[in-house]
């Protein structure tokens, strides 16, 4: 019943040091289907306990935006066995910290405590997986809190408001176009039964991943997990996540977003992009390197070099790509022009640079430097078992396997310039992109 498997991270750098003990990752499953990953780090007597659900905002029913995140808030309320707020208060009494986060693809809960309290964390976390109670009062107060959260993080921030519009335009049909926090008018219409419905559909051991990192022995984790999570039954039959998919993109989209609170105009270009898939990570690896080559490596990147150093038409440039996503992700470029340069002019420059990049190909020296930094990052990342645990959580709720996560550094090192170029050619298509102009209302501007 318990398949015990151990993985050792493979180090490409030739350090002759005992890294293995530090980097050991173990995984197994319980009979009810719950997956468990243990990331060992024995330097400090601390443990992080996380439960990840393969359920996020992109799994909400249409018209119910924000319910996944609102439910995350409600999990800190009462259950059949535990009083309102008791779990958090207990964690605090132990000197620990706890929190949770929701994305389009996952909802995750974690506690960071001294290692001897791992069993207590499992007691509470396994309890709220199945025994949540949601009162009308808690629900209505928490909706208000979430609306304040939306006001604070989105409505008070013009950049965040633009981003909602941008994603809504990029994804015509897929729920990645709907904000995780929820549209305000839909938040206002949510009811207690929506939260219960989402909870009953997705909060189940066979839809959850337990990740324990820190100063633990995998065998102990196994015994405890079996004790606390083992008895939980699956009440739901979970099919693979079926979400609406995107139609073939056939029209370039353009947005003009104006807000009085913007002082510095800028442009963005966002393309639909391939994500990492199990056993198939090469295109995503190529896109990861492409983002560094073109924009996210400061003045060494093509955008920084051309627009900040050479013709000085921009004061800031960047590129973003994150391949960890269940469905198709996106690749975005941002350019903040010098005050003398118009948005139209800077957009023309951006297009020229992309064309030239594809014509000229890749600077091998730069690619080597970027790859070496990824190698070094494998060393640096050992300093935080929390971040390593979190990376496993994101990957596994994005449909990847542990093997994919462990193979990723090698895939990155193995990518050829020709693959990056090919990925760039299939990425940079205007018809699968949104261009955004962000500025203060015209007429007011100088």
């Amino acid at each position, binding site marked *: 019943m318990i398949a015990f498997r151990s993985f050792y991270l493979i180090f490409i750098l030739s350090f002759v040091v005992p890294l293995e003990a530090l980097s050991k990752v173990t995984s197994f499953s319980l009979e009810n289907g719950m997956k468990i990953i243990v990331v060992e780090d024995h330097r*400090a007597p601390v443990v992080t306990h996380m439960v990840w659900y393969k359920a996020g905002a992109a799994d909400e029913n249409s018209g119910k935006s924000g319910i996944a995140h609102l439910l995350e808030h409600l999990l800190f309320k009462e259950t059949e066995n535990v009083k309102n707020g008791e779990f958090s208060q207990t964690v605090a009494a132990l000197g620990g910290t706890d929190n949770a986060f929701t994305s389009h693809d996952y909802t995750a809960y974690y506690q960071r405590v001294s290692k001897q309290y791992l069993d207590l964390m499992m007691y509470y976390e396994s309890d709220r997986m199945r025994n949540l109670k949601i009162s009308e009062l808690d629900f209505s107060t928490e909706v208000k809190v979430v609306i304040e959260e939306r006001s*604070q993080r989105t409505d008070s921030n013009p950049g965040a408001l633009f981003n909602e519009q941008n994603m809504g335009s990029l994804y015509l049909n897929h729920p990645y176009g709907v904000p995780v926090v929820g549209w305000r008018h839909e938040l206002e219409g949510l009811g207690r039964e929506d939260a219960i419905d989402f909870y009953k559909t997705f909060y189940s051991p066979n839809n959850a991943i337990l990740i324990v990192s820190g100063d633990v022995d995998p065998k102990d984790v196994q015994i405890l997990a079996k004790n606390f999570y083992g008895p939980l039954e699956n009440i739901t039959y979970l099919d693979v996540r079926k979400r609406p998919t995107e139609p073939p993109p056939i029209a370039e989209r353009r947005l003009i977003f104006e807000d009085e609170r913007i002082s510095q105009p800028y442009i963005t270009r966002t393309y639909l992009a391939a994500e990492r898939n199990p056993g198939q990570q090469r295109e995503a690896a190529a896109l990861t390197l492409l983002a560094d080559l073109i924009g996210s490596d400061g003045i060494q990147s093509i955008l920084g070099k051309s627009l900040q150093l050479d013709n000085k038409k921009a004061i800031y440039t960047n590129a973003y790509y994150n391949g960890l996503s269940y469905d198709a992700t996106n690749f975005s470029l941002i350019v903040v022009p010098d005050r003398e340069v118009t948005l139209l002019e800077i957009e023309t420059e951006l297009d020229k640079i992309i064309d030239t990049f594809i014509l000229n190909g890749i600077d091998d020296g730069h690619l080597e430097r970027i790859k070496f930094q990824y190698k070094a990052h494998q060393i640096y990342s050992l300093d935080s078992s929390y971040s390593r645990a979190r990376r496993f959580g994101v990957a596994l709720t994005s449909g990847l396997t542990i093997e994919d996560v462990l193979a990723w550094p090698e895939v990155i090192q193995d990518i050829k310039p020709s693959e990056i170029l090919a990925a760039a050619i299939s990425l940079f298509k205007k018809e699968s992109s949104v261009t955004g102009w962000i500025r203060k209302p015209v007429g007011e501007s100088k």
Partner: protein
Amino acid sequence: MKTFLTAVLFVLFLLAKPLYAELNIQELSSRNGINFWLVQEESIPFVSLEIRFRGGTSMDDDKTRGAVSFMTAMLEEGSGELDAQTFSKARDSIAASFNFDVSRDSLSISARFLSDKREEAVQLLRQALTTPRFDQEAMERVRKQIISIIESNQKNQKKIAQSKLYELTFPDHIYSSSGLGSIDKIALLKRHDLRQAHKVAINKDRVSVSIVGDISQLEAIEMLDELLDDLPNSSKSLPKRARVNLALGTVLVDYPSPQSVAFFTFEGINRTDQDFFAAFVMNHILGGGGFNSRLMMEIREQRGLTYSINTSLAQYDHAELYLGMFQSSNDKISEAIGVLKKEIAMLANNGVNQDELKKAIKFLTGAYPLRFDGNEMIAKILVGMQFMGLDKEYIDLRNSMVSSVTSEDVARVAKRLLSSEEFTLVVVGQPEGLKVSH
């Protein structure tokens, strides 16, 4: 399940052994007399180095305000024989990272490099610190970035609230203005001004250093001599203690947004004050303690008036404040401020109960050892301790100082710090029904 819980809670009280017992901090001096703390941690082949120079943006002259932060931004933009791009190439080809940051009171460097690239990394960092070029071309590029940030800050609701609060609180001290400077002053800064800023803000007699990682004592000593020996000693005195202007009532700044931002301050307390730990515990109970603080419970959990509210005891080199901050919708902020005032008055008048005190102490003492997690974290804590003038024994004593706080201590310090009904509260937004003092 009940018996299980009792057993677990019983174990809590047996927890006596400090968890960080194995943290072996060595106090060392370099050949040229620079004191530093070293923790050798050989299990991962890299080194975290934290360097902090006292002074920060407060070393600016009024007429060249912003020069220190401009200079800090230029340290990675070319030094020695290398221009900006060649420098960043050299740094990236060994996968080192150098973070330069500056605040009111200090200029800090967080460096990280692989053990087997130490020599190259130190050489690059040394030249960034000691022989920055301040090339005209790089200066113009960075100048534009700084001006753009200042312009954005002028329209940023939180920044507006924050700068208004500092402007009111420090009427005649350099703390009153942003260390970034103003657009007109930044526009006029010359290379000479950056050289001057470099001379007054990076001095080897004002440095604190910690090193954690895979490095020997001897290597650490050599590294520090190489890094810091060419730096000048200080030539400009630090600013004087600030006069703090408090209890100014509610001040409103109009700003179009669905939410209002509120920043407030009370009298702060110095770390060396005998009631500091009482204030520290009090703050945890009032607004420093995450989800379980009184303000979070009353304003967020019970009434849904905000997403988050927090308070903190701010320690600057030349002043102390007791700061707080939250955001609420324009139609709810007046109610939230009402609850805030009621909670403040209650704490000032009645102090805290035994149960709250016990919980706060349990959290604060339990959380302390958990902070020492990871080389980078430990290095940051250690440099901060030296900067604050704490010795390494503080790590062992700190929890007992927190534990010895009584409810009488908290009541006394609450009365002392929170009695003013007219504390300073800056609100930026378009709040409904708010009573304003000015």
